[in-house]
């Protein structure tokens, strides 16, 4: 092989390598999204039983209940279609408000309650975690569309 051809091959290999690396990174993002479960799916019982997962949505107005003298608290999260109760014990981020976007990490407990071990609040009211935004947008669109028969309408809302 002539050095010139070698160089072409080398550049080709490097470009191919970077492309493969990009594909692997995209795959990693995909896997990260699997981590995230929509509230509607949780209510319908479609969530991983064995492990922790993340949910996200807006904190429902007037849904925050705190226990006097402890850090225990309860609130509801909505994805604009279904609502889910969340229990949490710990220090909340200052930006945690009603009507704000929130991401909770934890697992389902007894009685349709999500037991969170970590709460992440997002600062900007316009900003949401991409998966939350996607989930909300989808359900808002569905609401706007004429109701379809037999749709997975939420019964707990």
């Amino acid at each position, binding site marked *: 092989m002539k050095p010139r051809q070698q160089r072409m091959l080398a550049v080709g290999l490097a470009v191919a390598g970077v492309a493969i690396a990009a594909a692997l990174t995209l795959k990693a993002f995909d896997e990260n999204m699997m981590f995230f479960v929509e509230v509607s799916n949780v209510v319908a019982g479609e969530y991983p039983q064995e492990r922790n997962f*993340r949910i996200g949505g807006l904190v429902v107005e007037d849904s925050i209940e705190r226990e006097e003298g402890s850090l225990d608290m309860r609130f509801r999260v909505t994805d604009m279609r279904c609502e889910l109760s969340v229990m949490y014990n710990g220090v909340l*981020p200052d930006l945690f408000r009603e009507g704000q976007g929130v991401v909770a990490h934890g697992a389902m407990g007894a009685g349709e309650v999500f037991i969170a071990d970590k709460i992440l609040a997002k600062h900007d*009211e316009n900003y949401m975690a991409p998966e939350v935004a996607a989930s909300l947008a989808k359900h808002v669109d569905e609401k706007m569309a004429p109701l379809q028969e037999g749709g997975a309408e939420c019964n707990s809302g």
Partner: protein
Amino acid sequence: MWKFFHQLASPPHFYRLAATLMPWLAVPALLLIAYGTYAGLFLASPDYQQGDAFRIIYVHVPSAYLSMMAYMFMAISGAIGLIWRLKLAHAVGAAAAPLGAAFTFLALVTGSIWGRPMWGTWWEWGDPRLTSELILLFLYFGYMALRSSIDDTAKADKACAVLALVGVVNVVVVHYSVEWWSSLHQGQTLMKKGGPGMDADMLYPLLAMILGFTFLFGALLARRIRTEVLYRERRTRWVREMILSPEGGR
């Protein structure tokens, strides 16, 4: 046009150009920062969530932005220096490094002061943006350490350029880490789709500060480049003639 580039590549011209540019950068920098400081502190209304604490963004955002800008600046001038064998480009990179490090440090300090009321902690290890900014500071330290441990300037220039280019990967990770890992740090407010999510009376001081800091960076850079060029060219005839001339190199 070509003549301009040729002149740009000659140290005496570059030295004089930097001197000419200095006031044109320094004066707007002062004006903009003065306006931004006043308006940011007194004219902007407190944030509906964060109260007055949000005002630290007027320092935090520009320095965070400049910490990355300076790095890109360093890497690009390194690449130019390597590809076109332009020694002046390396001098620019060398001049930019300590400035970048200073802005990175400022961004970290203001960010941590801000984090205290917002997140309830001075330092949040879980946040990739914070961590990556710290890594960026270490990258600057590495760059400066490498430069200072190679005696031969030409060699140090090239080695540092390679290091800066390798480090760009890291800066990219810093930039996209907010999206890559779900984090505490907010996403972009200014550049997002559908215009900035910020009120005008808060926004204009911020824009003024960003612009002002950029001008400040330019002015400081011009100043440092002059020193750097003078040091590198210390054995040449033009420097000797300039120093010995009645104006003494002004």
